């Protein structure tokens, strides 16, 4: 396993999260937490990918970790959990798969040639991956709240001494 590569990818995922945090105008007090969240999510995702786990499940694990983290952060930084969780999972959005899907769909509008079925199966594969990764990100982010069965993170008591 290439630990250095994974760590540097995680490091940059943190910066990706901060960039989107600033684009979404998050309160400045959450920026550092965002870096940590993005980096931890990215670290888990890329570690699992190195261990040849599927990309959908790897993204789900990363997003769930971010979702779990979002509750203590909500307490310490006094923000709703989603303010932290959404920018932190954005680096895991499958941009390349979405891009390949779009390109594949456009190619499918052309004439039917010998490689048409290959393009079609590639496009479906990429599209389904994109859809499922995004679903797993949204699910992962909201899992902790649903597990705790609370409407607000404020009602979840933390046992930290």
């Amino acid at each position, binding site marked *: 396993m290439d630990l250095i590569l994974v760590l540097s990818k995680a490091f940059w995922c943190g910066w990706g999260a901060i*960039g989107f945090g600033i684009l*979404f105008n998050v*309160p400045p007090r959450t920026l550092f937490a965002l870096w940590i969240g993005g980096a931890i999510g*990215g670290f888990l995702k890329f570690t699992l990918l190195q261990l040849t786990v599927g990309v959908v499940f790897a993204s789900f694990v990363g997003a769930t970790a971010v979702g779990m983290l979002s509750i203590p952060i909500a307490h310490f930084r006094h923000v709703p959990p989603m303010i932290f969780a959404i920018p932190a999972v954005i680096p895991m*959005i499958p*941009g390349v798969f979405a*891009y390949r899907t779009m390109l594949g769909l456009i190619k499918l509008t052309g004439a039917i040639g010998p490689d048409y079925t290959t393009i079609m199966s590639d496009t479906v594969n990429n599209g389904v991956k994109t859809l499922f990764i995004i679903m797993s990100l949204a699910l992962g982010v*909201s899992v902790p709240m649903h597990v705790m069965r609370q409407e607000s993170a404020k009602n979840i008591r933390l046992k930290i001494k």
Partner: protein
Amino acid sequence: METTKKSEAKELGALLLDVGVSLLSSGASCSRIRITMRRFAAAYDYQAHVSIAPKSISLTLNDEADTPLFNGMLSTPAQGVNFKTISGISRLSWDTVENGLSIQEVKDELQKLLNLPHYPRLVILLFVSLAGSAFCFSFGGKPIELLITFGATFCGLFTRQEAVKKKFNPYICVFFGSLVASLFAGAFIKAGLNINFEHAFATSVLFLIPGVPLINSFTDLIDGNILNGLVRGINALMFAMAIAFGLLLAMLIYNLK
């Protein structure tokens, strides 16, 4: 007595609609909007019944005996993403519950919140461009591709901001952003630089990805707000199409296959 209660309900109702509409136009999920409005109403011993449409919110305020005292509806201005508003309103709602602010005080605080400044434009541009490079790196980009993505994101986001200022249709703003970003990235490929086509193109438009509508769409669906979830999902899809059209036009212009 009866009339003071009615006028209070009227004032609170208008305030709650303002709160809800500010949340809806800043990118909050439906359950958050509903919970926050109910929390405010409960702080003043009212029950709020809220219905959230894609571009408007309607509200009925009942007293403890469930007699309706206020009916109202408010439509939203242009929708964007502003998490400072969402977190500010969340704090304000808890402040109201715990410290018993008066309606006037909440109104003033809300006004202050809505006027909070964004980050400076240059900071936004630089950090989002940095985020673009970060994505490029995580997809396996080389240093030269990182630089190209940085530049492309910078130009693309600048164009989008200008288009938003000129009040173009939001999808067209994204189309312009995507077109300029991919024209920038494509120029280097056309110039014969030996770079990975996919890294440069796919990551230079990533800053336009409608992440908040996408995630909110699924959040709403899970919470049972199916209609709102579908609307948000289709909205996100339209943005994705706008990105794709910008990209394709750039590829057509450069005659890249």
